[in-house]
């Protein structure tokens, strides 16, 4: 097992190199100059008395300071060398270490992600089971349709509609519009603060989760159906066990296998955060930071986010493989082909 993990990690290294190199190229070769933002132009309107004679010199200085004057391969090598030693550099925007900026937002994104995962699984699995157990029944057909519809709804549309209709003074104001908490809530007692947090997070979590649990339910159903067809289920029924025992005790275990392994792929995506949901609901999370980094051409931050995302994904895939091998006796006992 360890050997397998190590081998996988080793193979990942050239992959990571390729990913970072491609992204590095793409972001650094783009038109637009980050040093421009340092020489006196704030957003939207520019100062009339801003002199520009010295600007060129100053920009050259920043170019040098940030190493932007070196050929791109050298820049990449420097970045790589630093990254390997754990130094992701400082943000162009405010000189703070890039890792700090990312890490301080992880709890926020996680607080949404964790709930999303729980929601997804808790809802998807029972629905999938029932649909499979009562295939072609009204319940099955209805849920298939509903799930299909949910799966096709664009998340940014639903999120916008939620804000327009459910968080708007003009219609229904059930939920707060956006952000993480009401201003001044720091002074409230714990229970009220917690409830305020929950209220703010309900909409983002719901919008985030619905598409996934539609997909998951269908997977669950499909996997369950496969299992039910198997001989040993027929045997169990023939033995006289109740339908409930048959489904829940025998079929469930094996049909859960692919579902659990899916966890390994969902998790990294969620830690990365959703750019769309966080932007629409103004949640100061990791996804929003990534988006802002791109806009601000904050190269060190962009690269750090990318590496983190790739690492998480590979970690997730590894977890999938391991869980799979561990949990599915067929594979554990058969020859591993990787």
């Amino acid at each position: 097992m360890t050997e397998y993990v190590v081998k996988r990690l080793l193979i990942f290294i050239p992959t990571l190199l390729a990913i970072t190199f491609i992204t590095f190229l793409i972001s650094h070769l783009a038109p637009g100059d980050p040093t421009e933002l340092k020489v006196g132009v704030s957003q939207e309107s520019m100062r009339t008395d801003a002199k520009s004679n010295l600007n060129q010199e100053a920009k050259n200085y920043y170019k040098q300071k940030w190493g932007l004057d070196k050929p791109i391969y050298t820049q990449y090598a420097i970045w790589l060398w630093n990254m390997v030693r754990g130094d992701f550099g400082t943000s162009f925007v405010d000189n703070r270490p890039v890792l700090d900026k990312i890490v301080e937002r992880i709890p926020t994104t996680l607080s949404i992600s964790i709930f999303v995962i729980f929601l997804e699984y808790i809802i998807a699995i029972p629905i999938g089971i029932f649909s499979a157990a009562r295939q072609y029944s009204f319940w099955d057909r209805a849920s298939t349709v509903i799930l299909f519809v949910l799966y096709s709804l664009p998340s940014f549309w639903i999120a916008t509609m939620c804000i327009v209709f459910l968080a708007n003074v003009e219609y229904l104001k059930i939920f707060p519009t956006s952000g993480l908490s009401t201003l001044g809530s720091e002074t409230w007692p714990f229970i009220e603060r917690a409830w305020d947090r929950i209220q703010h997070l309900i909409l983002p979590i719901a919008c985030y989760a619905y598409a996934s649990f539609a997909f998951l339910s269908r997977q669950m159903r499909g996997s369950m159906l496969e299992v039910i067809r198997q001989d040993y289920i027929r045997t169990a029924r023939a033995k006289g066990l109740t339908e409930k025992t048959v489904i829940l005790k025998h079929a469930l275990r094996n049909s859960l296998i692919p579902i659990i392994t899916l966890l390994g792929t969902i998790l990294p995506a969620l830690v990365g955060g959703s750019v769309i949901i966080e932007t629409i609901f103004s949640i100061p999370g990791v996804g929003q930071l990534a988006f802002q980094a791109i806009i601000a051409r904050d190269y060190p931050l962009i690269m750090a986010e990318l590496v983190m995302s790739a690492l998480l994904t590979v970690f997730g895939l590894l977890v999938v493989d391991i869980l799979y091998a561990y949990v599915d006796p067929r594979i554990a006992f058969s020859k591993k082909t990787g």
Partner: protein
Amino acid sequence: MKTSKLFSTRFLFLALTSITIVLFLSSCGSKRLEDSLIIREMADAEKLNPTVSNDASASEIDSYIYETLSYVDNVTYDLIPYVAELPTESPNHLSYTYNLRKNVKFSDGHELTGEDVIFSLKAIKNLYADDAALRNYFEMIKSAELVNGDKYTVKFNLTKPYWRSMYTLGLFAIMPKHILDPEGLNDKIKFEELENYETAKGNPNIQKYADFLNSPDVSRNPKYVIGSGPYKLQDWKTGQEIRLVRNDNYWYSATIPENPKFIIFKTVNDNSAALVGAKNKDVDAMFVIPPADFYKNLENPDQFALAKAKPVEPTYSYLTYNEKNILFQDKKVRMALAYLVDRNTIIEKILYNDATPIQSHIFYKNTKYLNDQLPPIPYDPEKAKKMLSEAGWKMNDQGVLEKVIDGKKTEFKFTFLSNNNSVRKQIILVVIDAMKKVGIQAGLQDLEWSVYLDKTKKHEFDATYASWQLSVTPEDPYQIWHSSQAEGQGSNIESFINKTSDSLIEAYRVESDEAKRIELLKKWQQLIYDEQPYTFLWSAKSRYIYDTRINNVKWYDKAPSPQYNEWQVPKLLGAVQNPK
């Protein structure tokens, strides 16, 4: 089997609750302070050291912490004495001498003297400091020194006479030398060495000091952010709030008792959350960004004990056409284009009537310097058609205006450049539609801010919508309008080259008599109006709301408009709990 254990309900419940608790505990609480004023900031400041900071939030906050040699009067815009008397100018106009007051102290009790002034100038001129934007203004300021060793008299030397230097010199923040240069590194730096990167290389202290000044700690830690102003920095919670506390050792002690004890700048990125906060009294005053909120959401502000204010901040918007492009080289064409902008309807329908049309580069409230004889250009597509036809443009078969220029058939087609701002986009689309009706085909390209800057600086555009933030100090049109600034990456992005304009500007710059200066500037404004290198659009009003319980709230026509330390928070405020 393992899976059933994983999914046992008990385990799930436990996991869920513990995670919830952990996450919610991560937001700690503090009570609302008594005698405090809470102001909403849209974005957290990045750095609070006045030399290296470059964002609007920081400069607003710093204005309460740091002080300057002179000050611009909030109402008349005249230069008035502050930390020092108004300077005396040398007969050759190459130096200014300031006499400092003798009782000025930093918030830690240390005296403010000419040493601090000279040190601050050296820091600004330090080529490795993160202050390229600020440093530009000091290009003509060569050096500073104490006169006859008197630490209350400072003389600044210029490379060229320039009356505006009085403003530059009078308005830079004075930093405390004993805090920000305890080792006296700047004593080992000479002004000659700060001239350019070549000369600077020889003295390692320059880089050393710059590294110190640029460090995050210097800009964030209250022990370094110290000034002589009425407030000092008490605490900065990144991304959340910056808390200023009243300087009870303020040297201008007459005003102390009236100032609020705390001014808290709270960062709230989201506009709707901020609005809710204002209604709940978690924010006492703020700039309201979306016009829709200001008008629809706050139709009856008094039901929330709020009041609205619409001061005028000196900015203006304009359209400009690149004169390197053949289409726009004829001033008649440019004037015709001005007749295609329906300013009044746009102001009414898109800007909620909160803007004033303008005709000149000079801030319209600056009555001294404004040439008010310039008639507004109305929306008149028929007149525009006529003017274009007179300029030789005829409609072709495709319905597009066409003209033979330099032997080539040229259609009137071009693209507006804009950055990703939705209101700007709407306005440009309205203009494009009006142009289409007379046969001009204009497109629009949205660019991200940095690319947009790049393109406009390099003159790689046809037309654009932009805005300028004017200062309340007298304008110097050189930067934007002089032909020399059309080269390289100057601000004369539309390449407006006009000899008369140049000579007027040059004369204006060296004219030390104010009355004569005003004459020159008015003449210049008339010229610009006739030439129309810009279609001047309007000056928009700002939108503020504030809590009605606060007294002595004044709104000045400058940016930023309010002067928070004048506001008086009723002492009762401490007793007011959150309405919840």
